[in-house]
């Protein structure tokens, strides 16, 4: 055998070896011919399989009628055999082709015993433990590792989808060592598949990819034949290990700069993104397939707050952050998130317990800006008035009784905390004294008050206290 022919033929041996290495190969053959029982009748293989040696297809297997020479129901029980059919196999090895190649190379034909057992108990079987050696006896294996990453599986194997394998044989397919790596699923199998989908297709159908992959249009996936409808595949759960890049605390903020519809859709559906992206939904998100439109479920994310939200004082700082970069908030939040606290029915979440009973000091000091959430005129005043604290159109004496002669001193208090005044008093309360027709006509304006500018801006308000244009003119 020439070196050239050996290189040419070695894959066939590998194919044979791999095919035979599959556990259960013979177990799934339908009614295998009991060669050992016929050893006496057919002492040599070519007695029945003459065509193998001679390369004549018609005589590779005996005629079905020849069985009936003995199995006629009288001498032997009848058998039903309609002729040879190819047993499920994932190897490309073909006796005829192999024989023809040997002839073309000028090599001597191989004997049947080169591969097949001649032992009485296992006659004609291919010894799995020796098959690689058998093939490699003639065909040098370039890698020395059957599952080497660079192996060209397709040289000897057909895609799983073409094998006709049943569930047991599929489940018994060996797993290369590379698949056992922790990084294989999250990071390694993608690059390994790029350009070598035929290698994957030896043991997988596209259906296996689509158990997890949201985007089934990847070239690596479409290059793998899908299982025929009759093929029963093992049940698989989608697995989505977290890539190392996603674990970093900064990932949440950084991922927008690395968005790639192609890469994200490996694991994520649009629904995943919308777990957070409820407010302003990026266009890239809209381009992802929806859950239900694809067979894979997608990761199924739950929202995660960015690191800034974990700060002890975040609640106090969030208003300034929102004002400076409100669009960041809008990525995840719609306004109802804000309103749930800022104008929500109280469940005791924001203010401390018994806040109603002691909110006055906070309100005076404006440690929180009450008007951010509450309408002073409606919310505060309605409650104060109904509790007897608010003015009801007539300024009664005695309420501010902790400060003697309050009326004469209230100006300073009003300038310091006018919102507190408005939480109980209507504007008419003030006009009773401060209007030009009021009891005292006391000006509430400072010495620097620009009356002309005020009139130009809001003459209607001026007329609440003044009967005419206070700065002259029409």
């Amino acid at each position: 055998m020439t070196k050239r022919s050996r290189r040419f033929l070695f894959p066939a041996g590998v194919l044979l070896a791999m095919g035979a290495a599959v556990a259960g190969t013979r177990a799934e053959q339908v009614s295998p011919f009991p060669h050992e029982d016929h050893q006496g009748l057919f002492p040599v293989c070519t007695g029945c399989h003459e065509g193998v040696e001679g390369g004549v297809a018609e005589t590779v297997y005996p005629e079905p009628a020849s069985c009936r020479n003995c199995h006629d129901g009288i001498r032997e029980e009848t058998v039903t055999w309609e002729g040879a059919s190819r047993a499920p196999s994932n190897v490309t090895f073909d006796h005829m082709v192999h024989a023809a190649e040997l002839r073309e190379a000028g090599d001597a034909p191989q004997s049947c015993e080169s591969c097949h057992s001649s032992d009485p108990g296992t006659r004609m079987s291919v010894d799995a433990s020796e098959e690689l050696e058998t093939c490699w006896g003639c065909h040098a294996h370039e890698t020395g590792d059957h599952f080497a990453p660079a192996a060209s599986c397709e040289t000897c194997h057909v895609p799983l989808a073409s094998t006709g394998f049943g569930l047991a044989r599929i489940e018994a397919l060996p797993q290369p060592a590379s698949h056992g790596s922790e990084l294989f699923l999250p990071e390694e199998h993608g690059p390994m598949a790029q350009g070598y989908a035929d290698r994957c297709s030896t043991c997988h159908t596209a259906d296996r990819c689509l158990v997890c992959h949201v985007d089934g249009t990847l070239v690596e996936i479409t290059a793998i034949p899908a299982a025929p409808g009759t093929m029963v595949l093992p049940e698989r759960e989608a697995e989505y290990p977290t890539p190392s890049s996603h674990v970093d605390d900064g990932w949440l903020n950084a991922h927008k700069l690395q968005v790639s519809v192609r890469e994200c859709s490996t694991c994520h559906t649009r629904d995943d993104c919308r777990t957070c992206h409820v407010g302003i939904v990026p266009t890239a998100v809209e381009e992802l397939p929806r859950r239900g439109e694809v067979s894979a479920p997608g990761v199924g994310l739950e929202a995660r707050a960015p690191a800034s939200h974990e700060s002890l004082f975040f609640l106090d700082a969030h208003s300034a952050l929102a004002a400076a970069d409100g669009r960041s908030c809008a990525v995840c939040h719609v306004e109802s998130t804000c309103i749930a606290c800022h104008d929500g029915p109280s469940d005791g979440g924001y203010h401390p317990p018994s806040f109603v009973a002691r909110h006055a000091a906070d309100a005076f000091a404006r440690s929180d800006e009450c008007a951010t959430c509450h309408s002073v005129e409606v919310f505060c005043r309605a409650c104060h008035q109904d509790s007897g604290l608010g003015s009801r159109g007539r300024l009664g004496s005695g309420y501010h009784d902790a400060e003697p002669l309050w009326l004469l001193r209230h100006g300073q208090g009003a300038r310091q905390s006018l919102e507190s005044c408005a939480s109980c008093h209507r504007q008419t309360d003030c006009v009773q004294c401060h209007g030009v027709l009021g009891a005292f006509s006391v000006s509430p304006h400072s010495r620097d008050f620009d009356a002309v500018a005020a009139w130009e801006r809001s003459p209607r308000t001026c007329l609440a206290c003044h009967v005419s244009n206070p700065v002259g003119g029409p």
Partner: protein
Amino acid sequence: MAASARLGRAFVSLAILGAAMPGAPGTVAGQGVRGWVGSTVQMVELRPIEQIAGGCVTDEPCYRALGEEQSLAATQDVSLTAWGFGLQGISGTVLLRNRARLGSDRIWPRTDDRFDAILAYAQLVRGGFTVRAGRQEVRSGLGFSSFDGGRLQWHGSSRAISVEAYGGRSLARGLREPLREALRGIESFVPEQGVLLFGGSARGRLRGLSVTARYQREILDDRSGLASERGSLDLSLLTARGRVLGELDYDFGAERPGKARLTWSNVFGDGRWLVEATALRYVPYFSLSTIWGFFEPVAYHGVEGRVAWSPSSVLGVWASGGWRKYGDTGTTAILRPLEDQGRRASVGARWSLRPDVTAGAGYDLEWGPGGFLSSFDASVRMAVSERLAVTGNVSSFQQIEQYRIGDGRGLGAGVSADAEFTDRITLGAGASLVRHDGGGEGPAGSPWNQTRAWMSARVLVGEDPGLANRRRR
């Protein structure tokens, strides 16, 4: 209607809602809807006071306390954001609220307003553009501004720059109704005209720095007057171990600076120490459509500082202090001027005794013009199971309301529970009792017990947009 009947109806509504919603989320989620439906019932006991006719003569009391009454309110919210209207990037958002007054005739604020469409807008996102139309809010350094109208936003491909413009019919601050409707019968000088709002902002980001400048103007719809004209500048600078936050606004209508705040915070020592310092200015804002817009309140300026220390992952303590001083009011002092300085201090701690038990306590002291408050709070929260947490709390306070009815002391205790009934249904309930000791100054100061209770139910539809209690799997 009898209070008990109304209360019963509210609880029946809650029960029906709770029973009906579990089947809904899956159906609705398939249509591209996210949101929540929530119901809350609240009760607070009040003891109103009334002025005594003919009182306030010599040593006669001016006010007397009336009997205790319960004020109850129920609210039902529906918050939904929906996609999938056949056009990429289009969505709709609503937040609807229904209110009902229960219990006595004592008014729970806003319960006379039965229904609010707080948000109701459609939005289209295409590339860098976002267009929104309907009832919406702008949240900014100028506060929350609600309006019925449109908004257009654009951001560059790098998202480093964005601008927006918006305008429409202005809604009353905190009320989401046209001003004249919201304040009808409550205020005397409410403009007959509607108010139009216009505004715009520009935002820039460069590495850790974000800056937003905003301008906003409100005018009467017949152009006869200005309601407000304000601008703001806000910045956030993230550093390696901290951040700087700055806020500044200017009231062009009143021609004076508004609020300002500059906060620097930094962590030290492997993140175990957090130090924060703030300089601030505060002055209230009033619309020029009210007379208070021309009353010229003075600002206070102040400083605040906070230190937090977390010696371990289970323990955190903090202390803070602040001081503020009001500007010259320009008023004449009779007898003696009021205080013009205020101070506050607080300390607190939070301790996770066990993974399922967290305790916290805090003491706050506030004194200055208008009031004095000394208060202490403590609470223990225990996760009874993965889906049930119970919190107990106690509080004690003493306050002096300088301009009002004198001293008051209170001692309270409460308990609350939060339960995740299912992954989508959460229930909460709580009750507290505060013993008020008014210090014995007249009938209004006589001791009494104040109870408060609430219960709520929330059902998530689709996924929770509020992001509460959610972690990534």
